Every structure is written in C-alpha cells, then in structure tokens.
C-alpha cells in the first residue's frame, strides 16, 4: 500500500539539499517558538525604547542628586563676615581687624576681604552703575574659606567677632543651605516620582507588547497543547524565547543610554576649562552618573528582561486556559 500511495499524487517538490550525491539527514533545527517575527521585532523595539527612557531618567536623577550634593558642599565650605559701617567707626580698620581674627582662627584656610569697589560691584545689579557708592553706608564683606580638616568652630568665631569688632558678624549661610537642601530633596523626590512613573510605563508597555507578540503565536501554543505538550513545556519555551527578546531590547536601550552618559562624561572632560564647560560643571558637577548610576541601568536591563519573560509565561498560561 505505501508504495502505491507514494507513486500517486506526487506533486512538484522542492529539491532537497544534496552533498556529493547523498541526501543529508534532516535535523530539528527550528526552535519551538519562531525566532523571527514582526511582533518579536516590535517587542524588541518597545523594550529598547522604554529601557532607554527609564535609564536616561535614572541617570538624570543620579546627576541631579550628585549636583545638589556638590553645591551644598561648595557653599558649606565658605562663610562670610559682614562688617557694617557705623558712625564714628573706621570701616577699613574694622575689616582689617576682622580679617586678622579670622586668619588666626584654627580651621580657616583662606581669608579674602572684598575691597570697597568689589563690595560696590556686588550691589550694581540691584542699584545700577551710576550710583555714588561713597555716599552710601555699604557694608563690607570678607569671604572666608574653611578647611575640611580640622573643621573650625564657627560658633566660637561667631561669638568672638562682635566682641573684638563691634560692627562685624558671621554668616555661615545656614539658612541658604537649609533652603537648598529642601529644594534639592524636593528635586530628588520629584525625579524619583518621574522615574517610578517611567518604570511603571516601561513595565506596562513591555507586558502589553509581550501579549501582542504571543497572540501572533497562538496557533503554535494551540498545536503544542493538542499534541500533548504539558503547560510547563510550552511556557518554558516561550519564557526562554521572550527572555532573549527582553534582554536584546534591554541591552539596546540600556546600552544606548550608557553610551550616551559615557559620551556626555567624555565631552564634559573635554570642555573643562572653557566657558561652556565651566557652566556645565557648575550645574552638573563632573557630568558622571558614577558606578551607582551605571549599576542602576544594568539592573533595569535585567529587570525589563525578567518582566518580559514573566509576562510571556503569564500570557501563555492564560492562553492555555482559554483553549480549555
């Protein structure tokens, strides 16, 4: 019977690959889940874009936090002595004495009194340049840079100064630093909230894209189910395939973000010393997201890949439930 069957109804066949006149043995090369599909490529694109956005947001949050921390440290390293003019007082002598007291105080790295002209220039943005500052009771400033180690006892200096120079007072910028700290914390928390939203959007997008990709493979799930594959067998193959797709997308998006940050860091170093570079450095410090930032991006890549795999398993299991 088989021979008769074979002889009949033979239709034009594609020639099998031959090697030296001998037909090669067939092999089971194809994966259970198709490797290349439009839906798979779309999923990789969605994962890549969302991972890139999440990584850039993470980097931005890390940069803001680091810049605020640098600003705070910079401001905290500097205090100001203010010498007010008073009737019957020689303000130049008061400035010189206050500067001398500060220089002799332990923990002070540098003392620089502002001249009368420099003090006047500080007021120009508010009063204009045509004002005769000689007639105004303009206070004089002494900028004092404190040493990191040993740190000066600023409370003692604040007490000592008015005792020696009645018109002098010390401003350690505490109020400004407190306001800056509050602002910095608000900016950081705001950044974290945006990051949380971006991460949530990333996870949801990846889950929906994964569902869409699996919907296109529903026939494969059904056939496997009907020829006796267990649910775990089917889910395992889909999970493995989608973990690969998630990792691919994550590496493209996260890798792109890492490359972007590395380029910005490099450009920041190159521009250092120029006006633009100094401006950026003043705003963002070294423009580096550091080990923590890069680690966070890598964690996101892995997380997105795991979410893709988990979403595929869940979707396959739900598909199998609907087949029942």
């Amino acid at each position, binding site marked *: *019977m*088989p021979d*008769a*069957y*074979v002889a*009949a*109804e*033979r*239709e034009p*066949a*594609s*020639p*099998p*690959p031959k090697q030296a006149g001998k037909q090669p*043995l*067939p*092999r*089971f*090369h*194809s994966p259970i889940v*198709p*490797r290349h599909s439009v839906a798979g490529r779309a999923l990789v694109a969605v994962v890549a874009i969302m991972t890139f956005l999440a990584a850039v947001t993470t980097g931005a949050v890390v940069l803001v936090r680091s810049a605020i921390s640098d600003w705070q440290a910079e401001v905290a390293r500097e205090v100001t002595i203010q010498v007010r003019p008073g009737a019957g007082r020689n303000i130049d002598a008061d400035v010189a004495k206050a500067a001398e007291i500060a220089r002799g105080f332990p923990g002070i790295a540098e003392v620089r009194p502002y001249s009368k002209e420099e003090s006047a220039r500080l007021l120009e943005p508010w009063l204009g340049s045509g004002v005769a500052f000689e007639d105004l009771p303009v206070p004089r400033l002494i900028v004092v840079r404190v040493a990191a180690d040993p740190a000066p006892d600023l409370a003692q200096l604040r007490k000592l100064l008015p005792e020696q120079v009645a018109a002098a007072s010390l401003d350690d910028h505490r109020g400004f630093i407190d306001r800056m700290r509050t602002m910095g914390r608000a900016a950081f928390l705001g950044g974290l909230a945006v990051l949380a939203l971006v991460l949530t959007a990333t996870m949801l997008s990846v889950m929906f894209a994964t569902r869409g990709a699996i919907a296109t493979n529903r*026939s*494969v799930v*059904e*056939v*496997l*189910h*009907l*020829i*006796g*594959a*267990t*649910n*775990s*067998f089917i889910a395992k193959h889909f999970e493995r395939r989608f973990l690969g797709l998630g990792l691919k997308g994550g590496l493209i998006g996260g890798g792109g973000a890492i490359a972007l940050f590395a380029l910005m860091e490099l450009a920041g170093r190159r521009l250092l010393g120029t006006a633009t570079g100094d401006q950026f450095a003043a705003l963002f410090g070294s423009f580096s997201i550091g080990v923590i930032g890069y680690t966070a991006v890598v964690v996101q890549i892995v997380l997105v890949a795991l979410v893709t795999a988990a979403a595929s398993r869940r979707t396959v299991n739900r598909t199998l439930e609907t*087949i*029942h």
Partner: protein
Amino acid sequence: MVRFENVGLRYGLGPEVLRDLSFRIEPHSFQFLTGPSGAGKTSLMRLLFLSLRPTRGLITLFGHDIAMLSKDAVATLRRRIGVVFQDFRLIDHMTTYENVALPLRVMGHDEDGFRDEVVELLNWVGLGERMWALPPVLSGGEKQRAAIARAVIARPQLLLADEPTGNVDPSLAARLLRLFIELNKSGTSVIIATHDIGLMDQYDARRLVLHEGRMHVYD
C-alpha cells in the same frame, strides 16, 4: 478504550449541542462519525481529544475518568491520541520533517532515536522529498499527508480525523482512506468524522450518526 455515558454538552447558557451520548470505542476498531452540518461532530471530536469537558455525564478514556485528571495528566493522556485536524494545523516556521517529529520532541525523545522513523514515515506518505519544505509551500494534499503523519508518528492508540478528505479530490480521498485502514490494521483505533457518503461507502465500518445532538450507532 473510550466510554461515554449520558454525556451532554452545551456552550455557555445555550442549548445542549450533544445530548445523552452513550457509546464505546473498542480497541482496534474502525468507525465513521457522520451527520449533517451542525449536528455536533466537531464538538464530539473535541470531547474525544480532551479539548472540551462535558457539561454532564461521564467520559472514560483509557480507563481514566477525565473529570478527575490534572492538566499534566490530560497532556500525558493526549499523547496516546493522534488527531488530524480539518485545517491541518501545521506550524508554519517548521519544516515538514520538524512538524511530523514534533510530538516525539514534545515527549522528550532523542532525535537520533526517532530521525529514521520520521523519515521512513514521510517516505511512506509520499513526502520524502518534501521534508525540508515549509507548510506554506506545500499543496493541500501534501499538508493533509503531513498532518496525518504527525498524528500517527507517536503510534497513538486512538486516531481521530476531522473531515480528513474535506480538502482533497476523490482519488486522494480514497488513498487517504486506505492509509487509515492500514493504520487500523496495525492496531490503532480510528474515528473519521465526515459527511462524505461516498467515502463511507468505500469501506464497511461501524457508523456513529449524529442527528440533532443525539447519536445513533449502526454496527
């Protein structure tokens, strides 16, 4: 092998599409399942390959009450059943060889152990030179034969074929019928769902006739 006792099936809150079905499928038996369109043939086939659960009654398959089986046990039991779908259901990204070998791979068999068997079967159904071809380039007859080869490769104890000759010309239909008869002679119980009277007249076999959801058996 298969026992139905007072089985009923309804979809959702609709009317019963199958009513009080009671019959047996014996080992090594051959039967046609027939009836007019909409009589419930495909629903009964789905009950037989465990794709549906009855809304009432008892189905025993290979000695197991299917209502008591876990999902994994159902999957294991399904491996003893070969199914030829009306629409073939071949997987498009796999070659003919891979489609036919798929049930064995799902069972975890080693390819070195089953390759020769798959090639032999493909030659037997006339697809020896098409084993590298993908389903989209196969003709209707070739797809039908590939689907049959996939259904029988794991030597099932029960073979279900839903309208296996629905898409082929009469001469190929006759050849496919002879293939099923050969399989039956080698020990497989066969159920062919068809409304092709001409096909049934070619072989004297038991007929299970469905009409308005009820079954009439003609031995």
